[in-house]
């Protein structure tokens, strides 16, 4: 950190908050609120004379509340930059610090917050994590029993710069503990709180146990665990070392901790599964390995930066295997525990990778974007003609579209990822997507439904999940009937309701719309845009007189080949159970109103030609327009 501060090309803005982020890869504008320190940074030498004279003491959050700090202070001894700041919530304005600072004249009670804007090419998000608060688990008595502490508190207690100068003591009586129990998976791997594994707790619990054992050799240390996870290089050896040092590992998740009210000793109860018996362990100190959880403001940060979050609440990477440090927004990268719980080696590795990815942007004069992007036909967009519309704006998961009435909607190509949500949402077909134009899809429908369409299932699949699922069904040799005809689009958001109507107009027996599960969507919220539309569509299809069982929506992931095969099998069975005459008559009945709905398409000669049905005597586009 000190090196970073000294680097001529690194500027650290501490005590600052990102207010807004505009722009796109290579051209971001970041609005930052710099909070007042009430200390002039250039004048402060970090000597600490002001803190010595400050009469106010408040709990020190860095020391987990185990020690006090002053109203003028630095967050911790190694803070960079080492500039003192005044905590105005607690300052009584006695101005003793001003006197103590003397000729250095660093203290300025008149300092105001400052708003700065920076133009940057790329952004790395490394906002870290928070520790789970175990008070919500009543059976472990954290908060109620003084000698139940978290691992973070233990870290401070055994730190030579900590409140006890590195001497481990029991909070209840200041005595050195003779025994210690460490409990793993507190708040993680627990469906009641966080389902995920926090990953690094096993290693830090073993580390703490070894440190304590070295410090107090006769201390009896037990680690209660469900599974010890030490998969990385050198980790297993470390675990073995702990066992060889005589640290007791108990395979069993404690059910409760009770306290002797007189001695404040604790009783940990757990089933020792190796023995198959319940163990009641009396101990001086209990240390909870609390889960790593996303920071409380992760939601706010994700809104400002257009990030998405995984089910556990951490920021989601672009692709878990192939692009693990990229965020879904180009030019924004993720590093460290903000993306998911990880230990120091993994955080350093990801940080270095993120820096390299960001440098790639900075060192390029031009940037290649994806070929599949959306564009607006300014002659068709009704917004340009003064109509209030803007339906495309909320459909874009990347905030790439802006729409001002009186002007055509504008898509920032660099931000567009080509999901096609806006294309399908636009009621006037003013937006088209390269490589997935309406004409291309309609042409596919025409080809697929050439013969005996009433015996076919038209399956729209999203590129990332359902198409992968269908692929998986094939490569896994899951058998399913050959009635389905797949049409691939990039995202379920691209599945225009007109496609479904066109399929029925062409006499399709059934239509399946399939996409990713909500949390898996490759385009952040594309699936949600689609799901909303499909709900409406379901009703629309019924109103057309088409039996509801002939329309189906399924979320199928790339790993669910079995599900894809099952869905198609079920649909095929349903299709076969329906009388052919019923399908034909339903399609005939719906045809007129579908034709009316699709007349906008028919206005274009190319589309009219694609939509023409052999032997059809219905009027073509020219007459309708």
């Amino acid at each position, binding site marked *: 950190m000190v090196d970073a501060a000294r680097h001529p090309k690194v500027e650290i803005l501490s005590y600052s908050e990102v207010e807004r982020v505009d722009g796109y890869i290579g051209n971001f504008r970041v609005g930052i609120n710099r909070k007042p320190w009430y200390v002039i940074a250039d004048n402060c030498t970090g000597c600490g004379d002001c803190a010595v004279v400050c009469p106010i003491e408040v709990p020190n959050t860095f020391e987990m509340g185990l020690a006090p700090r002053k109203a003028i202070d630095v967050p911790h001894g190694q803070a960079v930059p080492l500039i003192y700041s005044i905590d105005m919530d607690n300052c009584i304005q006695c101005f003793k610090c001003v006197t103590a600072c003397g000729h250095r004249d660093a203290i300025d009670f008149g300092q105001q917050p400052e708003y700065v804007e920076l133009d940057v090419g790329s952004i790395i998000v490394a906002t870290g994590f928070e520790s789970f608060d175990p008070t919500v688990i009543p059976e472990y008595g954290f908060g109620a029993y003084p000698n139940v502490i978290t691992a973070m508190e233990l870290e401070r207690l055994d730190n030579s710069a900590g409140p006890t100068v590195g001497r481990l003591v029991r909070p209840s009586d200041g005595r050195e503990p003779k025994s210690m129990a460490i409990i793993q998976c507190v708040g993680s791997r627990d469906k009641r709180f966080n389902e995920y594994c926090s990953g690094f707790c096993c290693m830090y619990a073993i580390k703490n146990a070894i440190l304590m054992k070295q410090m107090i050799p006769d201390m009896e240390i037990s680690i209660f665990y469900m599974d010890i996870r030490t998969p990385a290089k050198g980790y297993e050896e470390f675990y073995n070392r702990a066992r060889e040092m005589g640290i007791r590992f108990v395979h*069993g998740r404690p*059910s409760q901790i*009770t*306290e002797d*009210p007189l001695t404040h000793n604790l009783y940990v109860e757990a*089933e020792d*599964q190796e023995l198959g018996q*319940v*163990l009641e362990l009396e101990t001086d100190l209990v240390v909870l390995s609390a889960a790593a959880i996303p920071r409380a403001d992760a939601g706010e940060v994700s809104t400002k930066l257009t990030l998405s979050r995984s089910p556990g609440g951490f920021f989601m990477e672009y692709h878990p295997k192939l692009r693990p440090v990229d965020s879904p927004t180009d030019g924004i990268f993720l590093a460290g525990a903000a993306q998911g719980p990880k230990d120091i080696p993994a955080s350093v590795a990801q940080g270095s990778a993120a820096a390299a990815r960001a440098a790639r942007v900075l060192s390029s004069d031009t940037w290649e974007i994806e070929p599949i992007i959306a564009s607006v036909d300014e002659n068709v967009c009704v917004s340009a003609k003064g109509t209030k519309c803007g339906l495309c704006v909320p459909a874009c998961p990347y905030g790439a579209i802006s729409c001002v009435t009186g002007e055509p909607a504008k898509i920032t190509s660099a931000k567009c990822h080509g999901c096609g949500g806006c294309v399908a949402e636009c009621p006037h077909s003013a937006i088209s997507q390269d490589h997935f134009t309406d004409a291309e899809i309609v042409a596919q429908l025409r080809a697929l439904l050439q013969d005996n369409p009433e015996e076919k299932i038209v399956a729209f699949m999203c590129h990332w999940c359902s198409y992968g699922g269908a692929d998986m069904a094939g490569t896994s040799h899951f058998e399913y009937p050959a009635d389905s005809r797949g049409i691939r689009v990039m995202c379920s958001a691209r599945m225009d309701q007109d496609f479904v109507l066109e399929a029925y107009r062409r006499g399709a027996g059934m239509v399946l719309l399939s996409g990713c599960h909500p949390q898996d969507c490759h385009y952040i919220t594309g699936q949600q845009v689609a799901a909303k539309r499909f709900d409406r569509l379901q009703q629309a299809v019924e109103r057309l007189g088409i039996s509801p069982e002939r329309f189906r929506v399924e979320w199928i992931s790339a790993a669910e080949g079995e599900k894809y095969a099952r869905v198609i099998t079920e649909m095929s069975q349903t299709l076969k159970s329906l009388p052919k005459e019923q399908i034909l008559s339903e399609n005939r009945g719906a045809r007129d109103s579908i034709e009316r709905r699709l007349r906008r398409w028919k206005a274009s000669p190319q589309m009219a030609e694609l939509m023409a049905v052999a032997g059809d005597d219905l009027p073509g586009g020219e007459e309708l327009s």
Partner: protein
Amino acid sequence: MIRSSELDRGFMREVMAIPGGENLIKCWSCGTCAATCLVRRYDPTFNPRLILRKAGMGMRQEVLSSREIWLCSACDACYPRCPQEIHISEVMKAIRTIAIAEGYEAPGPFAEVDTALCSGCAVCTRACPYGAIERQPVLVNGEERMVAQVDHTLCMHCGVCVAACPSGSITLEDYANDELIARMGAGGWLEEGSYQQGEATEPRILAFVCQWSMRSDAEWATLDAMQSDSLRIVNLPCSGRVDPGMILLALSQGADGVLVAGCSEGECHYKRGTYLGRSKVALLDTVLAQMGIQPGRVRFVELGAFDRGALPGLIAEMSAALKQPAVTVA
């Protein structure tokens, strides 16, 4: 040794197909339930984790024929602590459903009804926390009468019905009325004079203690060691088993006060035994006051999972209160 060829692979699915059993597959054997379980303290052979594990492995015969599957009283102490949110008593119920269908029977003991004495009043059917008692036509002395009958697959032998029965027609092994009275007065404890009569130096307290409210053997040992001329401990299967008649009997003889200790509300091993026990004591205290007897001579205390070692203090507190000069109630 368990041979894979002896396992019934379909057993897990069979349990999961019964409503309540569907979560069996989620168990990863962390042992939280086993360490929480109250039954386990009294019957070390009982281990809910192991039953779920065996069922998951497909040890069909062993699971269905074991007596352990009948021991879970559905107190649900483990349910809120399970990290996989498995409602373990429901899984147990699903396993029992299969066992019942296959003709296995619960091992007991059960509450037993003396049909000759039963008046068929149905007080017990309403008292039973498990709905295990129903009135059924039974041939008694040559005539068909509606009398209480205990469903052995549901009875958990808490003894609530025994205390509720006005005709004294229900008994429970080890906890029948005469057995409890004998334990109360063993060694002539009840015959000795009370503190109130000026014949004892300390108030003499009879404590009925629910067997589940003491969480460890050490606690029982402490309590046992405290037994003296001024303290008599009688344990009950549940505080709901307490009989107001016995309390009155004690007070009318040599006891100055009667304390009933049960589990805290929500932690009762028998669903609502604590509620019933506490209600009975509260009502009795009011009735005694109306009869001109100092309130506070009967007391109900709730002991939660975290009140380790609290009971001796509560007994001392009651003793001190009983030393206060009696308040005359008009």
